[in-house]
C-alpha cells in the first residue's frame, strides 16, 4: 500500500521581526517542519509498522531550502520524497490552497496512494484547506481534522475520529482511497534515530517542476496587498523590572481580586 504524506515547511517569525512590503524580512524567519505534518508523518510511520508492505512517500511544494526538512521526514520513516518547485512558483506571493492541491494531485496521480495524510493546517498560512482540496481534485474521499485513524483494508475503509469544537469527537467511516488531515495529538511523534538520519541521506528525493506534473499555470487567484503586525487593541498593564518586582506587583493585584492560598 502506498501512503503519501504532504509535508510543508512553516515560516516561524522571531519574537521581534520586521515586515518588508508584504513579507517578513528573511532574517527574522526560521523554517521548520510544520507541526501538524510531524503528526502526519508519525501516523504514516505507525501504519508502516502495523501493516505489511506500506511504502511512504512525502511530497513537498517548496524551494531547495526545504530539503533539510524533507530529510527529516525521511529520517522519521518515509521511504522516498518528492519536491515540486520552479521559478514561477517562487514568484507567487500567496499560494492558494487550490494551487497547492493541484500540484500535490499531480504527484498523487503518479504514486496512486491508497491513503494520503496531510497536516490539518500549516502554522504560517493556516488555510486549513489543502488536504480537502486535494481530495476533491483526485476524487478521493476525505476526513478533516482527525485525531484517530484505523485502517480496515479488507473492507476498504478508514475509521476516523474528527476533533470537533467543544470536546466532542465525530466518529466517521470513509471509503478508501482517502485523504485525512491530521490534528496534533493523534500520536506521539518520534525523534529520528541516528541510524534514521544516516539512512535518510541515501533515500531518493526527486524534484519535479509543475510542468513535469502537467500543471500548466500556478498563477494564484490570491495575492497579498498588505501585511502588518496587527494593531493591538490591548489595554494590558505590563509590570516591568526583575522577576521579583513584577511577581510582587502582580501578586498585589491578584490579592485585590481575591486570590489567596
Amino acid at each position, binding site marked *: 500500500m502506498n501512503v503519501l504524506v504532504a509535508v510543508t515547511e512553516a515560516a*516561524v*517569525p522571531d*519574537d*521581534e*521581526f520586521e*515586515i518588508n512590503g*508584504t513579507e517578513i524580512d528573511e532574517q527574522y524567519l526560521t523554517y521548520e517542519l510544520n507541526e501538524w505534518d510531524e503528526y502526519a508523518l508519525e501516523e504514516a510511520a505507525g501504519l508502516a509498522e502495523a501493516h505489511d508492505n506500506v511504502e511512504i512517500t512525502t511530497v513537498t511544494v517548496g524551494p531547495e531550502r526545504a530539503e533539510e526538512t524533507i530529510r527529516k521526514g525521511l529520517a522519521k520513516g518515509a521511504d522516498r520524497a518528492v519536491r515540486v518547485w520552479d521559478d514561477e512558483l517562487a514568484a507567487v506571493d*500567496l499560494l*492558494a*490552497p*487550490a494551487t497547492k492541491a493541484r500540484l500535490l494531485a499531480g504527484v498523487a496521480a503518479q504514486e496512486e496512494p491508497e491513503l494520503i495524510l496531510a497536516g490539518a493546517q500549516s*502554522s*504560517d498560512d*493556516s488555510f*486549513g*484547506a489543502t488536504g*480537502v*482540496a486535494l481530495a*476533491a481534485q483526485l476524487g478521493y474521499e*476525505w*476526513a*478533516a*481534522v482527525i485525531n484517530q485513524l484505523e485502517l480496515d483494508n479488507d473492507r476498504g475503509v478508514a475509521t476516523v*475520529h474528527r476533533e470537533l*469544537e467543544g*470536546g*466532542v*469527537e*465525530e*466518529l*466517521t*467511516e470513509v471509503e478508501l482511497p482517502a485523504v485525512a488531515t491530521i*490534528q*496534533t495529538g493523534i500520536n*506521539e511523534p518520534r525523534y529520528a534515530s541516528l541510524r534514521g538520519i544516516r539512512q535518510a541521506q541515501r533515500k531518493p528525493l526527486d524534484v519535479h517542476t509543475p510542468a513535469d506534473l502537467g500543471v500548466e499555470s500556478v498563477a494564484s*487567484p*490570491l495575492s*497579498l496587498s*498588505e501585511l*502588518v*503586525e*496587527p494593531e493591538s*487593541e490591548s*489595554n*494590558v*498593564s*505590563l*509590570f516591568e523590572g526583575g*522577576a*521579583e518586582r*513584577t*511577581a*510582587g506587583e*502582580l501578586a498585589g*493585584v*491578584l490579592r485585590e*481580586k481575591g*486570590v*489567596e*492560598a
Partner: protein
Amino acid sequence: MSADVLAVAEHRRGDLRDVSLELLTAGRELADETGGDLHAAVISGDVEAFGDRLNREGVDAVHTVAHGEEFNHDVYAQAVTTLIDEFDPAYVLAPNSVNGFDYVPAVADRLSIPLVTDVTDLAVDGSELTATREFHGGKTEGTVEIAGDRAALTIRAGGWPAASGNGDATVEPFEVEIDESAVRSTVTGFEEVGGGDVDITDADVLVSIGRGIREEDNLDLIFDLADAMDATVSASQPIIDNGWLPADHQVGQSGKVVTPEVYIAIGISGAVQHVAGMKGAETIVAINDDPSAPIFDIADYGIVDDLFEVVPALTEEFAG
C-alpha cells in the same frame, strides 16, 4: 451588477451553532456593499426550525435542504454546489469551523472558485473583494486580494455580531437530489472527550500552562504555584497532546470554554483556538517572554519575562 451572497449555516446535534447567526451579519454587510441579496441555507436536521431561526433582519431568502440529521461532508458538498448552481451567488460564506474545513474546500474546488479561510474582515472595492485574515499564528495580519468576481469564504467565529431582529424572508424547502453513490462517508456517532475528576469550568482561578514549560518535569513549578494560590491547573493543546495532563484540562476550541474570575496564561502564545476558550475570563494575566505574543492583546495584566524566573517568584509571594 449586483452580487448575491449565500450563507450556509451550521448545526450539531440539534443546535444551530452561534456562528451561523454571525455569518448572516457578515453576509448582510457584504450584500450591502455589492447591492445584492442575502440568501441563507441550512442542510440536514430539523431544517424547518433552523430555517425560522435564520430568518433574521436583512435576510432575503432562506433555503432549507432536508436530508438526514447530522453534518455529512459529501451531502453538504453536493447540496451547496447545487444551491450555488441554482442561485448563482458571487460569494459563499460558511463558518471557519472543523466542519467548514471538511466541506468548503471541496465545494470551492468543484466550482473552481477561490477560497479564503478564517476571514476576520471583508471589503469590496468596485468588483474586487479583499479579505483580512491572520498569518503566522496571529503575529501578522494580511489583506488578501481575490481575483475574479466569485469567492468562497470561511468566517472566524466571534468576528461579527449575531444577526438579530425578525426577518421577512421566505423560508422555502429546496430540493436537492443527493447522489447517494457519491456519499462515501458515514458519520457513525459522537464521543465526548473523557471526563476526569477536575472540572476546570468550575474554578475561580485557573493557572494555565502552555508549550513554554518545555518539559513535563517542569510542570511541578506550575502545580506549586496553583497550590500556593489555591487555583486549578489547566493547559493549552500541546500539553494535552504530549500526554502531560488529561484531556479534560484543555482550554480552547477543542477543549473547554472557561470563564473564571482570574485566568493566568503562562507560556501560552494566545492562538485563536486557545483564546476561543478563555476570552470570557474576568481578568486575564499573561506571562510570556515574547512581547509580540497575541495573548497580550487580550490580557489585562502582563509580564514579559522568562516564566522560569517569574513563576517561582510568584509562588513565593503566595506561599509567603
